[in-house]
């Protein structure tokens, strides 16, 4: 495809990074992260059915530093994906697409997810 010096349409790298783009990427990333987390949830249930020894081994993996960090990550992924999912459901009704509204709801959802994650770990401590 020859360009002949014609002006190109501005692409991703030329714009200031908008918060809505971060939210879109995070929604997908947290979704994929929880798909991996589903392995752990199914594993927890299955190992409980397998017996005390298998269950204890499973729990000892989760009770490490890496395990706890993963659990914290999955809890944030859950609260983010849930809150932003509701944002998507509102969009499905045709509302909230104005630039200022979309930006405001983005920040609201991001802060809400962080607060809910913090509350969850505070309550479970």
């Amino acid at each position, binding site marked *: 495809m020859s360009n002949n010096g014609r002006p190109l349409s501005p692409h991703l790298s030329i714009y200031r990074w908008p918060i809505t783009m971060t939210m879109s990427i995070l929604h997908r990333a947290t979704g994929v992260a929880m798909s991996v987390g589903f392995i752990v949830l199914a594993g927890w249930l299955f190992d409980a059915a397998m017996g005390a020894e298998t269950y204890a081994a499973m729990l000892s993996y989760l009770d490490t530093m890496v395990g706890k960090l993963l659990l914290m990550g999955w809890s944030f992924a*859950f609260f983010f994906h849930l809150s932003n999912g509701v944002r998507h459901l509102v969009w499905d009704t045709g509302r909230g697409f104005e630039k200022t509204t979309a930006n405001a709801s983005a920040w609201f959802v991001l802060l809400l997810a962080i607060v809910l994650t913090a509350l*969850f770990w505070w309550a479970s401590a």
Partner: protein
Amino acid sequence: MSLRTPLGEVLGLGSAKDGTGHFWGQRLSGIGLLILGLWFIYAILTISGFTHAEALTFIGAPLNGVLLLLLVVTMSYHSSLGVQVVIEDYVHGHALKLASLIISRFAHTFLAVAAIYAIIKIGLGA
């Protein structure tokens, strides 16, 4: 005169051969997970502990068992739809894409069935 077959006109899916089924499945399972997910968070916060005996007591309680079954089935379905879109977007090359989609479906089905088996086994005390 339309060249479309009567069946094609009734289905109304056009040349994409796909309708709004994926969209609706994703939204409805999402709403389901909103409820079930919040219940699961509540359950984690109120469970007495995570020893094997406490886990069996929790999973084995009838209402918990039913809600856990709904959770893993809905989660598997919602996750399967989501991962499908991610694969369709990022995996290029027909063979690799098709293989990835099949593996994802099989893996999601396997995890769901393993979880269902475990919940029922514990619930029946077998």
